[in-house]
């Protein structure tokens, strides 16, 4: 993280953005349609919003030295609760009900985050195990809510709600605006408030933070709650896209979010957090997938190429950091 203004423009901090630009250049070589507004902005940036926003939350958790594996299941559970609420209030279908369901999504995410945070701090359970537990619990609760299948909102409701994913303001899709908005708030919170500084301190060295009078439990619980809130925001954008959630919803999102955070320059071991890097990381991952579909790579090798590109990006970043 950077405290000095002049550091803000150093090569080290620019690494994720350089990687992103490199990838975009590669994409423009692969397919002429790649560098179009409809592909890059309307499709790719928009659909990366779930992972980007969840990864912003994960930046707090990981900067504080924690880990949250439950975000994918949490997204499915939150989406399930939201859809059930919308379906139950179908007769009053309208903007009011949708706004209320959004608040519900935020509240459910917040509650899940609080649960994770308390299990980790009061229960003194390793974040890996604690959130692995809630990952299984929330996934199972979703399956229960959906009776093993999928949950959908009615076409009428979807019609009203759809603009939240499909709409745009001044040509910028609403999900992309949401990423930027959440990112701005998160950056201020992490870089400009005592709480954010405490997150970095806890992730850097718990003992030092404790001896300096920082409440470890409070800081940690809050990071998991922020993560939960971000999942809530992501779900608010996810539900209007297909109007449904099923057991594949949120699958492997935790891994994608963690990858985005690390590609964005935040250390897995904590003590440092890069909000804008994380967002670049999320774009990076989504663009790899996009380029590979647009190119003519053998379909069986797509995974391998994806992995190689991520590793190359990380190697370049480490190379820059070592200088």
């Amino acid at each position, binding site marked *: *993280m950077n*405290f*000095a*203004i*002049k*550091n803000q423009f150093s090569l080290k901090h620019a690494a994720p953005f350089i990687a992103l630009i490199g990838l975009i250049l590669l994409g423009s070589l692969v397919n002429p349609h790649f560098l179009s507004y409809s592909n890059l902005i309307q499709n790719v940036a928009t659909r990366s919003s779930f992972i980007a926003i969840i990864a912003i939350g994960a930046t707090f958790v990981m900067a504080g030295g924690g880990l949250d594996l439950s975000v994918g299941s949490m997204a499915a559970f939150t989406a399930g609760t939201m859809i059930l609420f919308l379906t139950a209030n179908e007769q009053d279908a309208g903007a009011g009900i949708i706004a209320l369901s959004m608040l519900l999504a935020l509240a459910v995410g917040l509650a899940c985050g609080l649960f994770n945070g308390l299990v980790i701090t009061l229960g003194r359970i390793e974040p890996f195990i604690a959130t692995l537990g809630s990952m299984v619990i929330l996934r199972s609760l979703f399956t229960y809510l959906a009776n093993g299948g999928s949950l959908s909102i009615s076409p009428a409701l979807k019609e009203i709600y759809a603009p939240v994913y499909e709409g745009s303001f001044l040509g910028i899709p609403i999900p992309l605006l949401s990423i930027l908005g959440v990112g701005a708030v998160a950056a*201020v919170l992490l*870089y*400009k*408030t*005592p709480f954010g*500084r*405490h997150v*970095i*301190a806890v992730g*850097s*060295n718990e*003992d*030092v*933070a*404790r*001896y*300096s*009078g*920082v*409440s470890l439990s409070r800081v940690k619980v809050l990071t998991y709650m922020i993560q939960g809130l971000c999942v809530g925001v992501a779900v608010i954008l996810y539900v209007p896209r297909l109007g449904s959630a099923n057991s594949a919803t949120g699958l492997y999102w935790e891994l994608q979010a963690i990858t985005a955070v690390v590609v964005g320059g935040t250390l897995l071991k904590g*003590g*440092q957090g890069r909000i804008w890097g994380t967002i670049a990381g999320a774009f990076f991952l989504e663009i790899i997938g996009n380029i590979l579909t647009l190119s003519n790579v053998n379909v069986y090798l797509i995974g391998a190429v994806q992995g190689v590109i991520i590793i190359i990006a990380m190697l370049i970043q480490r190379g820059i950091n070592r200088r």
Partner: protein
Amino acid sequence: MSPDQSNPMKENQGLVAFQLSKAFGENLVLQDVSLIFQRGKVHAVIGENGAGKSTLMKILGGYQLPSSGTLALDGKVLHFTGPKEAEALGIVLVHQEILLAPHLTVAENIFLGRELRIGPFVDDETMNAKASALLSNLGSSLDPRARVENLTIANRQIAQIARALSGRHDFIIFDEPTAALTPVESEAVFTVIQNLKDQNCGIIYISHKLDEVKRLADTVSVLRDGKLVAQQPANKLKAVDMAHLMVGRELGALYPPKVIRTNSEVALQVENLIVPPSLNNANFVLHKGEILGFAGLIGAGRTELFEGLLGLRPATGRVSLGDKFNSVFSSVAAAAKAGLAYVTEDRKGKGLLLNLELTPNLTLSTLQQFTNAGFIQHRLELAALDVAFSRYDIRAKSHDLDAGRLSGGNQQKLLLAKTLQADPSIIIIDEPTRGVDIGAKKQIYELIASLARSGKSIIVISSEMPELIGLCHRIVVMHRSQLVGTLEGSDINERKIVTLATGTEKQAA
């Protein structure tokens, strides 16, 4: 004993450094240093932090290459590309930090990475036997099967020395081997060094503790600002002369004059403080403007006492700050609110965020002072850092360095600055000068005395007796989880402290 300038490489036996220089960028940290280290002698290298000692040691140990100059061993010019080559020639460096795997045994640590095997299997029996021989050769009876995590710091240091000496060892470089040890514990290390000297090893000894240097060394070389400024037989130098040579000016008295206290107002009273299992029932008072010392061996429970008081460990007891008694503080934050601050002995592990810059370290405990409407004002933080730099004489190449890049003395000053940022009325300082050079030491003593003069109440916990004797109005001595006595006035002397601290009071009386 300067090397023969005409043909230094060929004609001198031993390890010869000739006109070594080392530059990092434009920063010249070592300039034209020439030294000869002989077998069977202890050669001490002293100097302030930043004088170039560690760079010299790293070059000798093969960890760094000199920018110019030559190394030679018994007339043969050396070209190291890494520490392995130096070790193969019998030049080993014993690091200051203890670099052992805590969950492994002493023998397993000694042979880590070069395990003896029978076929594909580890040969524990032989390794234990060899480790045992190695340790007894050093004059230690340490059990090679003991796990490192269960050892005292002194024994860990011994294990570390044994590890360094498990291969060939003609020249051994000790980098402040007693930095973390009490005087009593240090004796074990001195025995080891004496044994090695008797076995005709050349010892290169680096320390801040000038009395140790005086006692152990045959020759003393003094570095200042990267240059060799003096070299003399140890028996011709007094500790105070060494200090003068190191700082290059008259130091004056190391300890500021003690101010007679006139105020008998009680600042802090502690009753029946129990910190299981490290402390039984402690009672003491601290007066306003007083410097109260806490002496004792490592493990006597000094640090634990104050960590319990401040809510860093489970503890019970009654604490009063003037009017009424309360139970112990629930957290550091609660203690800070009441005006208590604690400076940890473990600067790197518990005091500073080494991977972060100086400002976030300085302001971590007091961020509220630097906010406006809930947002941190970086401008205010930078201003505070400027003030701290000048007030505490913190020296760093730039303001946006990571804290871990500062020298020990500057780190300690930063830690003190961080603690004092909250303007506490009671300050508890655990090992105020551990790993700090003589110049910074003097500054820290002056700071402590001036804080007391301005009406603050101060507790100093220290393993260095001269420090306690030089600074404190009263000294509480601890032995095995108990407060065993309080010394005052003319009773404050080394003999009394030692008898109380070692529990030999009865025999002595």
